[in-house]
């Protein structure tokens, strides 16, 4: 009965097109919303994930980079490195600051790191790699592109101007793009003499828990986080802030899609109720009739899903133009999940038409 389902739909091509387009828009919205969240999560956790450190030491009471301003004494570097299992303790300091650009004023998070160890610095470049010296910075490529800057340009910070020596990739954090400078240079910028914000510790394999326990014992004024916990802490801000909104938006998009398919299939079923009566008279049982409805509904939503996927191309292009700092991430599971949601949409949309068919009087086919 697949043939009948398909031909019933194709008999009204315009209605099918509208329904599939409606579902497509709903699917596209679900995908884009989720891709924004995934992009945000990746952006937010990217710095910690890509820094070659297994333990992060922050001021007690602080849990992540984004919230508050952790301050730890720079003097604990040597004692930290004396803890068995610790290979190196790498100081990191940073601050968010506004900088004038050719396109106006924009904010930038400047991170100071030990350029000798490289820990805490940029991990990927879109230009030739470079380690910034005092008076130099490596700037996020997205920031440079939107601000109209390139390598060799100078960027005026509150204390002095610095020359851009390279552009980094993967360092766009949605509302916050990263720039990297020499540790002492950035300490001067943020006037944080004798203190740093974090220590990123490189520890031997399997030593993380023991090192954390030892730090807690020796330095009660700091908290040592494992890399995975620190990543989670940093992502939590996004999850807490965006996930509830995302679920509401995705829910709305789902129900809009459901309403469109439901109404389309219900209308088509009502219009063809006599033909369903004929089918019932010639020997179709309720399962057969329900199967036709479900097939129609599934075909419509799958077509809508395909259209939704195609609409991603103009949608991502438009987002790239309007909000270039927004990173969209489309993992494979997101498409599988949305396809699953489309199937659920199809099944749910079939409910009322099937109920209507259950009340169908097949004897009505004898009435002229």
């Amino acid at each position, binding site marked *: 009965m697949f043939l009948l389902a398909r031909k019933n739909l194709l008999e009204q091509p315009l209605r099918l097109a509208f329904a599939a387009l409606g579902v497509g828009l709903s699917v596209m919205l679900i995908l884009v919303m989720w891709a924004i969240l995934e992009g945000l999560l990746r952006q937010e956790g990217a710095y910690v994930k890509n820094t070659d450190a297994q333990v992060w030491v922050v001021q007690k009471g602080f849990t992540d980079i984004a919230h508050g301003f952790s301050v730890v004494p720079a003097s604990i570097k040597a004692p930290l490195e004396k803890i068995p299992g610790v290979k190196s303790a790498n100081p990191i300091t940073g601050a968010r600051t506004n900088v004038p650009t050719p396109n106006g004023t924009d904010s930038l998070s400047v991170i100071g790191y030990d350029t000798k160890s490289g820990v805490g610095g940029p991990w990927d470049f879109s230009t030739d790699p470079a380690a910034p010296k005092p008076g130099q910075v490596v700037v996020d490529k997205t920031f440079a592109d939107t601000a109209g800057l390139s390598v060799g340009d100078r960027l005026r910070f509150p204390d002095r101007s610095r020359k851009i020596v390279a552009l980094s990739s993967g360092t766009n954090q949605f509302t916050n793009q990263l720039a990297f400078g020499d540790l002492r240079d950035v300490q001067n910028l943020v006037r944080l003499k004798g203190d740093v914000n974090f220590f990123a510790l490189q520890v031997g394999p399997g030593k993380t828990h023991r090192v954390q326990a030892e730090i807690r014992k020796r330095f009660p004024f700091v908290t040592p986080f494992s890399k995975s916990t620190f990543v989670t802490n940093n992502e939590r801000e996004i999850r807490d802030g965006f996930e509830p909104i995302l679920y509401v938006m995705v829910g709305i998009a789902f129900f809009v899609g459901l309403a469109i398919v439901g109404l389309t299939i219900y209308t088509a079923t009502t219009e063809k109720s006599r033909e369903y009566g*004929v089918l019932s008279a010639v*020997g179709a049982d309720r399962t057969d009739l329900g199967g036709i409805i479900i097939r129609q509904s599934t075909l419509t939503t799958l077509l809508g899903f395909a259209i939704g996927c195609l609409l991603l191309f103009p949608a991502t292009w438009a987002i790239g133009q309007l909000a270039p700092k927004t990173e969209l991430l489309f993992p494979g599971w997101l498409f599988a999940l949305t396809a699953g949601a489309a199937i659920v949409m199809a099944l749910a949309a079939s409910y009322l038409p099937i109920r209507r068919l259950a009340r169908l009087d097949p*004897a009505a086919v004898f009435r002229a």
Partner: protein
Amino acid sequence: MPETLLRAEGLERSFGSGEAEVLAVRGIDLALESGERLLIMGPSGSGKTTLVSMLGGLLTPSAGQVVLDGEDLYEHDDKERAHLRLQNLGFVFQSFNLLSALTARENVEVPLRLAGASTRDAGSRATELLEDVDLGSRMDHRPRDLSGGEKQRVAIARALANGPEILLADEPTANLDSESGREVAEILRRLSEQGKGVIIVSHDQRLMKIASRVVSIEDGRLRERQNQQLDDSAEP
């Protein structure tokens, strides 16, 4: 030796309840034998449609039974009754009731596919049936492109798809011109000669010419009629 294909015993059907109750069919006994062409005649509102709906397993009687293959149709649940209709009964309707989205061949394939035939088997059987009713060249046309007579012949081919022993035809010539009506009547006669039992519900007097038995229904009661034109050799 003709065998009884379908038997109705004490068939009754009422609609509404209390003072508004209307008894549409009252205590009807009826039997259809193989090769028989039973014409049920009666004016509008006489209970013809109610009777044929009950005989076809589409309307549960208020009392009585319809026996098909030794079993009461209405002792089965909806799903089993649908299966019995699919295998044992063919329906021809006044307004053809073809599925508008499908071609003639696909319409005939529907009952075959419902019965579990493969696409290929259903296709070849449908082609064969449509050629039998002289529609070999029209089988890829949709109903809107067919004449009334052609539509009714497609409907007959569809009714015969699963090789039922019984054909129920409700006013099969009512929407046809005289030539098409004659063709349809001829097909029905040919089918009964092949051993099928045909029940025709109609008020078309021309069909009396092909009927082997005529009964009339009035106020829900059945009355055997002497068919003045009963002559199997006569042209319809």
